[in-house]
């Protein structure tokens, strides 16, 4: 958000970060669609390397009355949503220090292709970010998704939690989920989304 911008022309900056295969892109797309339903100008972009799986993925969503760049600038994100601890740490500096929040799934995915990764993985990433005075909301989204029957819904749980912090009404989110998700996954994902909202309320 530009220093000169007033609340009326506020652009919302959200960055989703995770590991390829976690559904980061879908969470970002659903957010962009929800913002679109609200009548906002919306831009979205993703950055990922050559690997389809296992690489670091970042996805930027910006919405407001008028959006220029599709990319969020470091230090200006209202919300950084980390679907994995190391990825939340990697993109933490994108968050706006005075009012931004880092939502993080308290779950580690150790990079398989890095020698010695098991020993050097920053398992204390969340504590580190808290020590650095970031506003951090950590939640066991992977466990919650698993308890709901499918660990792959971690993206929906995190999106549910994020939705509680994004100024878009719940019914708009639900209608986007219903229209975008295939029928056979719909009910389970709606539950995952609701569980995420409960998690956000619990850690607020």
């Amino acid at each position, binding site marked *: 958000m530009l220093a000169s911008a007033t609340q009326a022309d506020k652009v919302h900056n959200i960055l989703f970060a995770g590991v390829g295969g976690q559904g980061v892109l879908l969470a970002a797309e659903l957010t962009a669609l929800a913002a679109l339903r609200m009548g906002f100008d*919306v831009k979205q972009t993703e950055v990922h390397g050559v690997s389809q799986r296992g690489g670091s993925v970042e996805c930027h969503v910006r919405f407001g009355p008028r959006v220029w760049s599709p990319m969020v600038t470091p230090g200006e994100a209202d919300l950084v949503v980390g679907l994995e601890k190391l990825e939340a740490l990697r993109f933490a500096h994108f968050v706006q220090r005075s009012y931004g929040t880092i939502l993080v799934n308290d779950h580690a995915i150790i990079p398989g292709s890095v020698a010695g990764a098991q020993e050097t993985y920053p398992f204390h990433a969340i504590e580190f970010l808290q020590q650095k005075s970031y506003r951090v909301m950590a939640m066991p989204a992977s466990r919650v998704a698993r308890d709901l029957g499918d660990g792959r819904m971690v993206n929906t749980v995190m999106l549910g939690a994020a939705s509680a912090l994004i100024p878009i009404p719940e019914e708009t989110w639900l209608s986007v989920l219903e229209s975008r998700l295939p029928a056979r996954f719909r009910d389970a994902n709606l539950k995952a989304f609701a569980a995420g909202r409960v998690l956000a309320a619990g850690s607020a």
Partner: protein
Amino acid sequence: MKRELLLGNQAIARGAWEAGVRFAAGYPGTPSTEILETLAHYPDVDVQWSANEKVAFEEGMGAAIGGLRVLVAMKHVGLNVAADPFMVFPYAGTNGGFVVVSADDPGMHSSQNEQDNRYLARMAKVPVLEPSDAQECKDFVKLGLELSEAYGAPLMLRTTTRLAHHKSLVSLDEPQPVSRRTFTADARRFSVPIYRRLLRPQVEERLERLRQYAEGSPINRLEAGDASVGIVTSGIAYQYAKEVLPHAGVLRLGMTHPLPTNLLREFCSKHEKVYVIEEGEPFIEEALLALGITNIEGKARFGVIGEYSPERLKSALGLGEAPHDHAAEIRILSRPPMLCVGCGHRTVFSSLRQLKVTVAGDIGCYTMGALPPYEASHTTFCMGASIGTAFGLERAGEERVVAVIGDSTFVHSGIPSLVDAVYNGSHLTLVILDNSTTGMTGGQPHPASGRRIRGEAAPKLDLAAVCRSLGVEQVETVDTWDRKAINGALRRALAHAGPAIVIAKGPCQRLPEMAGREITPYIVDESLCTQCEACFKVWCPAILRSESGFPTIDPVECTACTVCAQVCPTEAIYPAVHLHAPSQTSAGTP
């Protein structure tokens, strides 16, 4: 009017469809691939993946002089492959509208180099349009086709990665009916080498008429602002400039070749200082300097390497440093790319590493063979270069040289090199990694996969028969997941006196028929496991380490490729009898 969030690439496809494009061709390449993939979903358009970009361009050229509206799409280096027709086509000029999309990749997210193809367009005397958002991606395709027909000019639409891969709002229109233009067979127009001197002047005349168009075109848009600072910009960089300097005067160039020289002179004379903000090389900047305009600043301030961003502009303008990550205080492990679970390339690189050969690699997922843990690919340059490079290394005196190329890349540009290697008496070993797809760009069919872009069956090129027909006597096709078979075939190939080929065959795990099949995942029997680490050295992302230190295999990710079971000395890895339910898995495994 209906509005949708579209990728830049999707908007280009939509624009082509709305504007009545009837033929579209290309070869997959990041960041251009989604253009043809999207266009294939629209009816009434003849869309295809071609064997390579040169072929695609020439097919498009034929369709356009034949009177159709045509779109061809490729990444920046693809246009190098198509450069031959690209340079000559303007001499003849087109009949039906012809737009070639060049998707440049500043930042080299998925490319071997940075290359600003506006220079190629200038060399070819081809006009260039540069959209700044998805709406303009759609609109400029339509405008480009109209200009192409009005001026007889083949035209380039230049995108960069962020434009191609961002989504923004696009208003959708109905397709317009466009009928085929009359084609007259006319050697004086289309037999360029014969009538080159006759045709040459019209190239210059056309460019001058296009320059006059550029002077008054609404896509070269003036936005009033402060007199102190002006910005000349194009493409996605326009968005960054507006974000960072909202009060500056702006000249947004939608057409960057030929440039509107009068407009530029006038704009620059009205501002004390002018920033030239363009992704890639100083293309506009150099033109301004050539016009004698000196109150400008471009690459010296903003840099020439990599992608632009608002953060970068802010920092270059001294408007504040964005915060950095915490890598100085805490270990932030990287997540380098790795071969997918069950990827058939793994066995080949393990074997090549073990054989201690010199490997000339090629372009595809298998460039990762150069990285740890394999480090078994020693050169990679461009599409098809493996065979020629291996040949040259052999001539330089290297023993035991192996070229490694994928099936799609072999068809793209490997075949002439193999013809040459046989003809000129090479004894190199060539491995063709035949995974039945163009894997790295997301799995597009090709002539040896037996499918076309819409999934329909097509004649299937027989790679082994091709190799034999070129005069290679030693050709073996082996199951790529069979370690012993791969190793044996490689040893026989290396021992063979003449050129020898190993076709390592096995479909890409990302292909729908592979991803969707029922499999019995493998499990680790902890009562037999001695924690010898052999399975970890397969470097399969599905093999994880449990807290007790034993290997454990993610049952959802496992593709039952069997490679870990083949390396286990105690037979502790075998198929699970019962299929594990997805609910028992951990989330987001790598």
